[in-house]
């Protein structure tokens, strides 16, 4: 059930069961849409990279058809690098275009798990269409990886 911008009702409107003045479209469907929300999640199994420039996290991509509202994007999980305390960076991408600022995270130490919970909220809503949400990452040195089955990307059209 999709969201439809509620019509402006007029005096003596006849609330038909279907069509432009439909109570089902403007009342039932919209209330159900608000209840069920519009969101999606993806989980990456065992991604890793040695890239010192930003590349997409393999196997972590969310496609969501939005209705023109702003989106909350959350990346959660745990990462590690094969050398001691290492600078890693994360970028939010919508349809491959970076949004927001780059997040920087130093890992705890060589092969030690570092928990992540990064958030971004779009201040300019993506257009009402299908969009692909991804996260790009990079490491200053050696191999950056995520602990198996912990890295999740949530995308949620909020308002």
């Amino acid at each position, binding site marked *: 059930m999709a969201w439809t911008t509620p019509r402006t009702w007029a005096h003596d409107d006849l*609330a*038909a*069961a*279907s069509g432009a003045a439909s*109570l*089902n479209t403007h*009342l*039932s469907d919209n*209330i*159900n849409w*608000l*209840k*069920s*929300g519009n*969101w999606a*999640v993806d989980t990456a199994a065992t991604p890793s990279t040695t890239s010192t420039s930003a590349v997409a996290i393999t196997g972590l991509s969310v496609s969501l058809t939005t209705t023109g509202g702003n989106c909350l994007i*959350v990346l*959660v*999980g*745990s990462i590690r690098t094969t050398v001691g305390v290492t600078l890693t960076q994360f970028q939010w991408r919508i349809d491959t275009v970076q949004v927001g600022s780059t997040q920087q995270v130093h890992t*705890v*130490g060589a092969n*030690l*798990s*570092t*928990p*992540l*919970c990064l958030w971004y909220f779009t201040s300019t809503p993506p257009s009402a269409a299908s969009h692909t949400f991804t996260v790009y990452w990079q490491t200053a040195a050696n191999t950056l990886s995520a*602990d*198996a*089955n*912990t890295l*999740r990307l*949530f995308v*949620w059209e909020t308002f």
Partner: protein
Amino acid sequence: MGWTAPPTFTYAQAMTVDILNTYLRDNLNWLKTRPWTSAAISGTTTSAAFAAATASASLTSVGGNVVIVFQGYHSNTSASVSCGIDFAIDGARQGDATNGLQLFHTHSTATDNYPITTFFITSTPPSAASHTYEVYRKTASGTLTLTGTLYVVEWF
């Protein structure tokens, strides 16, 4: 006031007081004040397997998906120890069987506190009933202390 899924209206159906109050007023009020709860989490563990923290949160939901967040800090009597955190609903853990939702190593200085935030949305909604939400945690060695707040909200 609970949630009642709006019906499919039929042509010329009268908009009675009951219909407007149940499907319009009550549902809008439900959307405005979605069910949520929180619980203070504290305590220690020496368990190498995921074990529940002592406190839990109970929430009666209407069959929607639930957002679960833990925000707090951790420390360990041993330095550089592998620890894990997971959420459970009625005792069923939600994350990876081995790693849970997140792994985290304690830092090189034992007993120092470090922040941790965990976020999860159920993909299979809990049934319309009361459910118990818990934080599970484990530590490879030493004594792990995890302190913070667990939030649960039915959002979808």
